[in-house]
């Protein structure tokens, strides 16, 4: 209690029955309209919503819903290193497979790494891996998809050199 009013932090514990007013506090409450108003306020807050929520018995509904809507399976790729490895592998595979004119066999200087970790992935997980392909691969795809007629002679020459 300060010089003028009761300590605001005393109201909630007393209203909940976890504490009691001291004699001095009770005497102050009797004569102070400001503190009585706060007492009524906290008492009203304590009872707010009690009838509405008293009938809430949702344990069965929640359990049924948890059973009906199983959680998403945990990712098999728990580590960041796994994702980086998969993304790199996907980028290499995309470059090799999608550039036209190339044989499926390894071109000179390019080694294909077979990642057996990819074998067990679901289509959704594979899509997630493909989404992580770095921009370089996207740019390669973009160039190859552009009509050749739109390329300049130096560009065509550079492209042919690259394909050799």
């Amino acid at each position, binding site marked *: 209690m300060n010089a003028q009013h009761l300590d*605001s932090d005393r109201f909630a514990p007393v*209203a909940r029955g976890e504490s009691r007013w001291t004699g001095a506090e009770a005497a102050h409450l009797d004569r102070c309209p400001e503190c009585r*108003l706060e007492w009524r*306020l906290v008492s009203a*807050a*304590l009872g707010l919503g*009690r*009838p509405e*929520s008293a009938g809430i018995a949702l344990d069965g509904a*929640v359990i049924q819903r948890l059973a009906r809507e199983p959680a998403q399976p945990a990712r098999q790729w728990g580590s960041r290193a796994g994702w980086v490895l998969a993304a790199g592998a996907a980028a290499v595979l995309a470059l090799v497979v999608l550039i036209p004119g190339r044989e499926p066999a390894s071109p000179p200087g390019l080694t294909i790494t077979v990642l057996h970790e990819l074998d067990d992935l679901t289509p959704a997980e594979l899509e997630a891996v493909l989404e992580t392909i770095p921009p370089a691969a996207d740019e390669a795809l973009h160039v190859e998809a552009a009509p050749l007629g739109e390329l300049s002679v130096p560009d065509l020459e550079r492209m042919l050199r690259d394909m050799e």
Partner: protein
Amino acid sequence: MRPLSEESPQPDPTLVAAYRSGDQAAAAELVRRHAGALGRYLYGLGAAASDLDDLVQETFFKAFRALSGWRGEASFRSWLFRIGANLHKDWFRKDGRRVILPIEDHDVPDRSDPEGEAGATEMARKLREGLLRLPRLQREVFLLRAQQGMEYAEICSALGTTPGAARVHYHHAVKRLKEMMR
């Protein structure tokens, strides 16, 4: 882990661990333990009485689905209330719902009131209207303290603030509510 027993109520962290080990009865016990208080809190935040069942159910569903995010630093209850408050906020915003506060005859304190019970209904009505005029954080802190009886340390973990800030919000809320009640 020993089976649940009515004679020895187990603490929330034990029930959470049991549920994560596959014991659905533990989840049911957590729902029974906290649903009523959570419903009262959401009602105080402004949820319509007709939405309470859905909101409470959705809160528990989200909480159980996100249990891996609960590290035990905050109490399960404060963590649950935080999820509920965020859900209520999204619910309110997404559906454009606006609460038109009904005056519930039974919306009264159940404790002794020095002023008597005569004005209790009117007080409850004014309180609910006043709460909606408060800034959100003040409203949440006031309810967690005055309605739910949380200590400031628990409140700050529920709301992601500091105990000092929670205390300031509570005192501002009380001051403003008293002004509205005069």
